[in-house]
């Protein structure tokens, strides 16, 4: 990845992170958009898996610092998602919006699964509802937002070859 692309990716990730802490509280949906996951997926596919895992770990720590009840759970989830996204980019990250959407959906859902299971926040029926219903809904919303973000930012991220 060239420096230009790295800077562009960093700027876009920064915008998405800022959106996570400004737009998300304003919307305050029950199944809300996770802009951090979108930023992680967006950055991970442009990095090596190890670096993506570190990026995910850093984002996870930022997220955990604001909800210290399960400090480390988000870091673990995002590390796994970042590493997996970077490792699987050759398989999934084609030039297909639907596939990208599914990729983001999967990333968000896995993150939620890890976060909920490791954080020990809910149990029993509530855990089941959270994983099946609310996490799925949040993943779908995040996937939609991610697809929208990718389609909007694609012209910016196109690599111009001479």
């Amino acid at each position, binding site marked *: 990845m060239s420096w230009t692309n790295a800077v562009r990716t960093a700027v876009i990730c920064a915008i998405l992170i800022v959106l996570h802490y400004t737009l998300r509280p304003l919307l305050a949906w029950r199944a809300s958009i996770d802009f951090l996951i979108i930023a992680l997926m967006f950055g991970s596919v442009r990095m090596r*898996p190890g670096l993506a895992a570190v990026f995910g770990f850093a984002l996870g720590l930022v997220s955990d*610092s604001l909800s210290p009840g399960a400090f*480390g759970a988000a870091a673990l989830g995002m590390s796994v998602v970042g590493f997996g996204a970077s490792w699987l980019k050759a398989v999934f990250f084609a030039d297909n919006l639907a596939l990208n959407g599914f990729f983001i959906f999967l990333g968000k859902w896995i993150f939620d699964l890890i976060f909920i299971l490791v954080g020990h926040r809910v149990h029993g029926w509530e855990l089941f509802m959270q994983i099946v219903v609310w996490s799925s809904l949040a993943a779908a919303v995040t996937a939609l937002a991610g697809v929208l973000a990718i389609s909007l930012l694609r012209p910016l991220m196109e690599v111009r070859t001479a």
Partner: protein
Amino acid sequence: MARATRLSSRVDFLLFIGCVIASLIALVLPAQMREPLAESLRRSLVAPLVGLQSNAERWRTAWQLSEERTARLDSAVMRGVNAVALQTENEELRKLLGLGARLRTGFVPAEAVHNAVREDVVTTLTLTAGSRAGIKVYSPVITDQGVVGLVQTADPAISIAILFSHPDFRASAMSGDGTAFGIVYPHLQQGLGVSGSGYLLELRGVPFRTTLTPGTMVYTSGLGGAFPRGIPIGVVLRELKTAEGWTRTYLLQPSVNPARVTSVMVLTPRREDQRVESVWQRVARVDSATRNVVASGDSLLRRAAADSVRRAAAARPPAESVAAAGDTANRTAAAPVRRTPPDSTRAARLVRTDSARRDSVRRDSVRRESARRDSVRRDSARRDSARRDSARRDSARRDTVRPAAVRPDTMSTLR
């Protein structure tokens, strides 16, 4: 190349494993260590994001508060509007309850539902009571103010009434004193009303020899069979010029505004046979009695005020009147007491002042008379004693000269 790739893969994997281990360590950290770590992150790296999040939360709270405030204001305005409507309805229902108490029996209360189609002049009403409640066709529909109309259709649960504004409405009517009779029709040529009222009536067929002055109350006469005698219909506004020369037609202002009617009473056939004129006349009597009581109360108050003023003037010290007596005596004598004061209190005050002046003048003259009399007495006494003294002196002299010679006048004086 393959070796470099393998190496980098191992580095990636090791980094991943390192991240996972670090995450797990963070997870199992005790709360005493976890919280300072999170706090240091919040204060350093995450501080701008914390600021952004708190600002967003504040905006959201402000927006919610504004929405709540708007909703509260809306509901307050709605309650205010409803309160006005409820007050009006309460007043109307209270009046209707009063009418019900006066009628005692033989009526069915009903709500008047206006038609969904908006009319400039309301001609029909749907009533929420029907034949099951005892309402029949041609049953009179009234309010506490007077005639509203007649039932045209009586279904089991609802009925439809035509109002006095309906072209088919007729009612036999008479003047309040019973000297003039006629038939009341709706006044269909609208726009001739007073103060924009679209609801006017005509009293037709009044004998030519009978004239009704504006303001005369017109009641149902009880002759038509539909309405019992004595229900108010309206007030005479003026005479209408018509082609017929043998009867008079008068324009009436109805007692009831049909557009505002929401609750009515329907008289049942049993009640129609009984007299109802006392129901409205009693109200008129009570009104006039109330007016009389208020008027008499006013006059009593006025009289009491005048009495108190008079008593206060009488209790004033007489020195004031004595001082003014010299001037006022002449004025009193010259000018008569003013008889036409603007009000009774002032008149009483003037009369009192004049009488006080007269009294003081009288008292002064009496004092002067008595003083004059006293001085005259004192003068005459002094003169007498002086005479006696001089007589004694003379007699003593004479005695010394001629003791036997006594003058007859001095003898009498001495005696």
